[in-house]
């Protein structure tokens, strides 16, 4: 029997981090997702242990300031795309530059330097990924998805999907459905 599960990534990550910190007896505070303040009195030994235990879960402590800023930028973009309440009417460049307190030019150069892609492409990628997960997990029509993600028309979303992935949303939906069929009847 195959079962399908879905995850709340934020919750999973926070739970792992909290449990790990507790097990090491380090006092901490979580101001926002992906950011942890630990007690200054924590020994370098226990910080090293923390590093090792979190690495098991693919969680890495980021040390470089530039990388931290890029990570915050990515989080802000993901937040902007995935949380509808946060959907802003200002341009994303204005939103990101205000939220992170740096000029858009600086953020944009830094982002390309660290990630090999542009902020614009990353936003499109995130929106298309969100579209994919909605196609795979819900019964929403493409028109409804286009509306939800603030696209001016379903044609615009459809074109951007095709340009980004090389396949149409319909083909994507068909492939995912066939994969599930194959997973449930491996002999066919």
């Amino acid at each position, binding site marked *: 029997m195959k079962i399908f599960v879905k995850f709340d*990534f934020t919750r999973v990550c926070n739970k792992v981090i909290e449990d790990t910190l507790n097990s090491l007896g380090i006092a901490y505070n979580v101001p926002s997702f992906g950011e942890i303040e630990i007690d200054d009195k924590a020994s370098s030994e226990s910080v090293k242990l923390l590093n090792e235990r979190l690495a098991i879960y693919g969680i890495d402590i980021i040390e470089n300031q530039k990388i931290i800023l890029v990570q915050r930028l990515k989080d802000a973009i993901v937040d902007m795309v995935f949380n509808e309440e946060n959907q802003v009417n200002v341009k994303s460049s204005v939103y990101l530059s205000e939220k992170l307190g740096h000029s858009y030019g600086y953020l944009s150069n830094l982002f390309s330097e660290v990630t*090999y*892609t542009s902020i614009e492409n990353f936003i499109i990628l995130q929106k298309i*990924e969100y579209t994919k997960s909605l196609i795979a997990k819900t019964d929403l029509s493409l028109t409804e998805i286009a509306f939800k993600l603030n696209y001016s028309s379903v044609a615009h979303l459809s074109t951007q999907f095709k340009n980004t*992935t090389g396949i149409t949303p319909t083909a994507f939906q068909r*492939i*995912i459905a*066939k994969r599930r069929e*194959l997973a449930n009847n491996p002999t066919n």
Partner: protein
Amino acid sequence: MIYMNKDITYVVLADDDEDDRLFFTEAFEELKITTKVETYEDGVALMDALSADDALIPNILFLDLNMPKKSGLECLKEIKKSKRFQDMAVAIYSTSASEEDIENTFVNGANIYIKKPSDFNTLKKILSDVVTVNWQYHTSGLNRDNFLLRL
């Protein structure tokens, strides 16, 4: 274990055409992304190497569809049966195929389908795109099950 050096992308190609292997390796050498490239000339040699206990699992595996001894599709099906390779992206790298064949590789678990380009600069652009998108999946917590890309 999966190749873990974060600054280097480890890619492997299985292709029976020697010229194609050479172009592929040279294209990667010219990209600004640091990669480690290894090539095999057929599906059996590839699967033997990947199945070794101490084998490093590539970040991206490129499979030619038509190869002697074991085809790309056979390799793909074997790979998808094993948990060891769940974090590895699989790209089909093929001269030409029908729409139906292309879709079939996706259904069987391929993440990327690349039609072999005829000129070197296009190849460089395509491989750079593939590594960049894969990198995004790797570093931005995206759902790999939804990773489908056709170039």
